[in-house]
């Protein structure tokens, strides 16, 4: 391929956004210097060859996701950019402490809601906001899950604004996905890009499956033999099926579908070639609604009849705990800082994005007057659906949303449009800044553990702020650096 020169950052423009790799004066940040030098030293066309090799590898490995509503059942690879996002050790330390604090408080909140509801009685959060939430499950009232843990796996979405501050955008408590891409992205970079790791002290992410399994095993009801953990998937047509099979494989546990399980008075069993075998812990990747047709949606074909009853009787452990979604709705999100102050007796380490609640008269007025500047989100949708990005909207879209908000204010929140931070991204034959967010993964069992890494989702379209995979987003590897590497010491990278 003629005409390709080696790719440089000399013409890279941060355009006034916070760039994860460059300071305002286009000087590389200290954590990124080595990577930039390495990338620039690559010979002509190398990076693009790496990129194509990575895409081929992903397709070959079948690391694909299914697109809903696409009748051809198309499998696509999750677009993957070779330039990683780098997080220096001190920044990560803040993120880690902030996430531990937040998950701890959220867990305390859920446990409180399903028991004494002190936070409601003390007037910190209006009861009707909590008790009317679709994801509040009265079936869970009075329930004591093992270790009183409700949020076993959390995938908190963070963003960095123009001020360089990290904000929490969303608490994904129910069945957060994406961690397999964290692990696979790292594998791909290691396979095709080993030289770039040299000299950088990138913390490994490969221990995640062991940590996850350990946490799940710690939930098992007392049993005479070692516990059996299984992963419950909706099946091969689910968009996250790759992740389900990948995690089951990495943990060495059985991947089961609802039809593989049966419940009787003794507990939960799976159907095997040698008869029924007991199951102790279920890492379920099915939403509450579909978990058990007896307890939730009666038309669910994916779930297991009687599962909730077995769970309530303590015969099987479920992760994540049903009902924990009560703390993961956009209307409750706005109150998380208050929750942290209430349960932890401290200010939040990671702030929320300022949020306007449309059912508050004054907030609603403000939102309607400033639609062109705000991001309006439906309080009940996820995945970037049902969303208005003000600055990128047309007049008729704004009018449509104004009508919707007035008709059903309880369904909407709004936030200022954040100037999400950017990372250089390969676009054709050069680099351009693209907006990113960050989803770290937090495990909560005996203790709270934060995986040193995370899914950096990137909006591949120029100027776009929507990073969701269903909306054309891609991902990047995320390198969390170790504190203060000893100079000249043994190189340690994963």
């Amino acid at each position: 391929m003629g005409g390709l020169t080696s790719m440089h950052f000399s013409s890279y423009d941060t355009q006034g956004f916070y760039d994860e790799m460059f300071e305002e004066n286009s000087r590389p940040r200290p954590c990124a210097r080595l990577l930039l030098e390495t990338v620039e030293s690559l010979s002509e066309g190398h990076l693009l060859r790496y990129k194509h090799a990575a895409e081929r590898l992903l397709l070959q490995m079948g690391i694909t996701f299914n697109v809903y509503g696409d009748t051809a059942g198309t499998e696509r690879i999750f677009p993957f950019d070779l330039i990683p996002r780098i997080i220096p050790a001190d920044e990560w330390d803040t993120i880690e402490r902030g996430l531990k604090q937040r998950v701890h408080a959220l867990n305390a909140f859920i446990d409180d809601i399903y028991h004494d509801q002190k936070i409601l009685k003390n007037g910190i959060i209006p009861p009707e906001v909590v008790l009317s939430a679709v994801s509040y499950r009265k079936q869970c009232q009075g329930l004591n899950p093992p270790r009183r843990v409700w949020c076993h796996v959390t995938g908190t979405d963070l963003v960095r604004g123009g001020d360089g501050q990290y904000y929490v955008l969303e608490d994904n408590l129910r069945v957060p996905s994406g961690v397999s891409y964290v692990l696979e992205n790292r594998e791909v970079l290691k396979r095709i890009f080993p030289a770039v790791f040299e000299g950088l002290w990138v913390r490994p992410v490969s221990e995640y499956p062991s940590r996850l399994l350990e946490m799940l095993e710690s939930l098992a009801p007392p049993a005479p033999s070692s516990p059996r953990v299984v992963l419950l998937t909706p099946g091969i047509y689910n968009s996250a099926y790759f992740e389900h099979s990948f995690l089951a494989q990495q943990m060495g546990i059985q991947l089961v579908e609802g039809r593989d399980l049966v419940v009787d008075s003794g507990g939960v069993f799976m159907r095997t070639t040698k008869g029924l075998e007991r199951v102790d812990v279920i890492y379920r990747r099915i939403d509450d609604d579909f978990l058990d047709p007896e307890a939730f949606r009666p038309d669910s074909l994916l779930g297991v009849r009687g599962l909730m009853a077995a769970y309530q009787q303590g015969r099987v452990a479920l992760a994540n705990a049903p009902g924990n979604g009560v703390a993961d709705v956009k209307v409750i999100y706005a109150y998380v800082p208050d929750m942290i102050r209430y349960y932890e007796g401290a200010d939040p380490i990671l702030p929320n994005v300022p949020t306007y609640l449309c059912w508050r008269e004054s907030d609603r007025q403000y939102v309607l007057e400033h639609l062109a500047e705000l991001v309006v989100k439906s309080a009940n949708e996820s995945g970037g659906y049902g969303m208005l990005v003000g600055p990128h909207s047309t007049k008729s879209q704004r009018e449509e949303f104004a009508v919707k908000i007035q008709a059903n204010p309880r369904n909407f929140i709004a936030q200022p449009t954040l100037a999400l931070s950017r990372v250089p991204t390969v676009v054709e034959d050069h680099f351009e800044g693209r907006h990113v967010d960050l989803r770290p993964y937090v495990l909560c069992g005996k203790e709270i553990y934060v995986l040193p890494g995370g899914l950096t989702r990137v909006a591949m379209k120029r100027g776009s702020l929507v990073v969701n995979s269903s909306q054309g987003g891609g991902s990047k590897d995320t390198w969390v650096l170790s504190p203060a590497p000893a100079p000249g010491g043994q190189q340690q990278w994963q």
Partner: protein
Amino acid sequence: MAMTDRAQPLLSRVADSVYWMGRYIERAENVARFIDVNQNLMLDLPSGFGEQWQPIVDTTGDRAVFLEQYEEATQSNVVQFLAFEARNPNSIHSCVLAARENARSVRETISSEMWEQINSLYLLVSGESRKPLAERMPEFCRQVRMACHLFQGIQHSTMSHNEAWHFTRLGTSLERADKTTRILDVKYFILLPSVSDVGTPYDDIQWGAVLKSVSGFEMYRKRYGRILPERVVEFLLLDGEFPRAVRYCIGLADNSLRAITGTRTGAFSCPSEQRLGLLRSELDYAQVAPILRAGLHEFFDALQARMNTIDECVRGDFFAQQPLAAGADG
């Protein structure tokens, strides 16, 4: 955390899927062999005799499906039907798709290398189906065969030889035995220029082509030397060492079934073991002359029916979702 040291029990659904994954891969490979053997046979027919593509559709048992979609059995119709037709559940394309769907549902049970290979095979045939056919068919068939071999080799050397592996081999062996009988049957359906040509060079050449299509020509030569119809049948049906011979395949299937159940040779604990064991011992002690006297085609028909019954028994014994005991359901 304490590590578990017990063997993982195998989900019935997973056993079902790996069994069919094995069968479909083997089926895809054999359909590629069908196309090959027929092409070879046609090349060896005297000129002016015309091409015979109908027989191959008869042998694979898909005649009705074929006639719904095509008017006549021309080479291009038949090749399209056998290789790429999505409406033919037994086309190479459909088999690979089905094998991959099964593999996908048990990805955590098979090795990553197996999955990557089945994925490569899928990319090979799904890419090909968009291209026009040409003289490239022999090469395509060869690629499919090699990709299937590679899959089986990878399976042999990267997956623990556990219960799931034995289910895959059970499916693979039963499928291979069935298809070897059908490939032999192609010869039965192919018409010679005249009855008096039986035993002539034409006949020899055709039997040679049959052997080549199951990669058995060289091994046969080492064993018997001259091409004699009776010996070819004996070799492909009753040989105890050639891996595509029916008897050899049935022996493998029986070994795997016993590895699954733990039942000793000479006894049985379920219908599939009883029927498979019976078939194995019959083939172990069979002779080719009486089979030929009674009619080879009829013998194959009966054999195929018995293997279908074994397949149904395997389903009933291991895959069927047993209803729970009364009172267990809420």
